[in-house]
């Protein structure tokens, strides 16, 4: 097991004096705490009582004509370009046939009981690189959960993640291979890009609970089963910013929450990156649908 936050290891390898300077400079000192929580979390059962839980389903629609995306100029990477019969288009805004807006990250932002903490899922979330694109483009993971970056192109990619709360990384994948990383701290969102192929970008939402989802082509996302109560749900889109809505979960019911975005929002959208999320408690955020 290789820890991402290697200050502890540095202490063993280097002298104490060096350690002090180096960890201070690296800026990842306090992140080490995340590891212990993860280790503790693995023995923990989910605190959600399924007998009383209810679900949340989100639906994100796009109003109006979907904007036309630019073509991606893959001429510099013929091996990728050869995979496409049509011209590959940018995927900043992907609207389904039914008007659903895909690649929206929807998550519970507020309302979880204080003290509620969730086990880290054992399975990894996979972000593949196919035809010089990230598939999927937007993913949500739980803090500490493995995120597998997969290279299926067989040509060099690098994965340059620049989070704000977590420690960034910049790893290369010269051939077909998998690389696992995880983010120990919650933040929405973490931008990921490939420096070899300037058009390749993706986003990772990191939360310390499992109640999140990414909309599919129909605009729907399932946020999972939660304890009954009032929640604030936020939808995040890379171009149009965020919207929030409040929703009440009752036992055995699936609450619906819907959002709608339009091209007009792009003009003055604030797209949060690297925002730390504390899902416990209420009040920090105004309730009701709201456009940033």
């Amino acid at each position, binding site marked *: 097991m290789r820890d991402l936050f290697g200050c502890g290891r540095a202490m063993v390898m280097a002298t104490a004096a060096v350690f002090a300077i180096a960890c201070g400079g690296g800026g990842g000192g306090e992140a080490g705490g995340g590891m212990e929580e993860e280790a503790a979390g693995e023995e923990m059962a989910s605190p959600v009582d399924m007998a009383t839980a209810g679900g949340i389903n989100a639906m994100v629609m796009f109003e109006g004509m979907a904007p036309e995306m630019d073509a*991606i100029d893959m*001429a*510099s990477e013929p091996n990728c*370009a050869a995979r496409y019969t049509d*011209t590959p288009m940018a995927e900043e805004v992907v609207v389904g046939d039914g008007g659903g807006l895909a690649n929206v990250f929807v998550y519970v932002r507020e309302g979880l009981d204080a003290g509620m903490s969730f086990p880290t899922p054992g399975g990894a979330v996979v972000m593949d690189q196919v035809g010089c694109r990230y598939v999927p483009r937007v993913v949500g993971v739980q803090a500490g959960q493995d995120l597998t970056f997969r290279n299926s192109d067989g040509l060099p990619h690098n994965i340059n993640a620049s989070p704000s709360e977590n420690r960034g990384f910049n*790893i290369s994948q010269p051939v077909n291979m998998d690389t696992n990383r995880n983010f120990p701290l919650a933040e929405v969102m973490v931008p990921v890009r490939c*420096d*070899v192929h300037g058009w390749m970008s993706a986003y990772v939402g990191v939360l310390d609970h499992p109640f999140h989802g990414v909309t599919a082509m129909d605009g729907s996302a399932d946020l999972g089963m939660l304890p009954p109560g009032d929640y604030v749900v936020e939808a995040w889109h890379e171009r149009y910013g965020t919207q929030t809505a409040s929703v009440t979960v009752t036992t055995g019911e699936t609450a619906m929450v819907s959002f709608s975005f339009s091209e007009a929002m792009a003009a003055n959208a604030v797209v949060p990156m690297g925002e730390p999320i504390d899902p416990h408690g209420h009040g920090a955020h105004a309730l009701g649908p709201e456009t940033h």
Partner: protein
Amino acid sequence: MSWMLPESFSTFGPDVDFLYYAILVVTGIVFVITEALLVYFVIRYRRRDGQKATYIHGSTKAEIIWTTVPFIAVLGLAFISIPSWNMMKNPDSVPADALDYIINAKQFEWEITYAGTDGVTGTADDISTINIMHVPVNQAVNITLRSEDVLHSFFLPEMRVKQDAVPGMDITVWFEATAAGAYPIGCAELCGNLHTTMGGTLNVYEAAEFEAWVASQSADADDADDQEDQ
């Protein structure tokens, strides 16, 4: 394993190649003579028991000779190098009719912008490409080389062009290709993890072809890029 340079396709080629071969000949002669003498002396004056080596401490005449001759030789090489160096690197040497380009280097791409038909960069008809540079043959091009992040080095082996891109600096690079074809672009300065992928292609067109390319880019800027390039 060859000491011959690959064929050059720019106006710098003859100068650089001449200097290279001149130095190759001079150093080659010195190399052969010195190594041969070394081997000859080792064999000729090998150990003979009961015999003493010749007791000599040196010769001022010899010292003077082998100080002045190399001195003149290397200064000669330096002075014949100066004009070519000035032609290649001095911004004043760029021909007035050169086409303007901007190359913006970043990890790990060359973003190449051609000034377009109006000949001025920073206007709407600029044509940007990634890693693929399009230039006309027998026409000087004037590149403003920049970098966004770290050092890169713009390397056109067949054009005998190499220049580091330094963030915060605008560096002038120019060359004039003398034959149409496709030539490699390389990055010659370690620029990060995937430095190795920072290659590209220089497409040198005949004048008419180049105009056609410019026209196709301007006419249909949205989606024509890659069909054209493929």
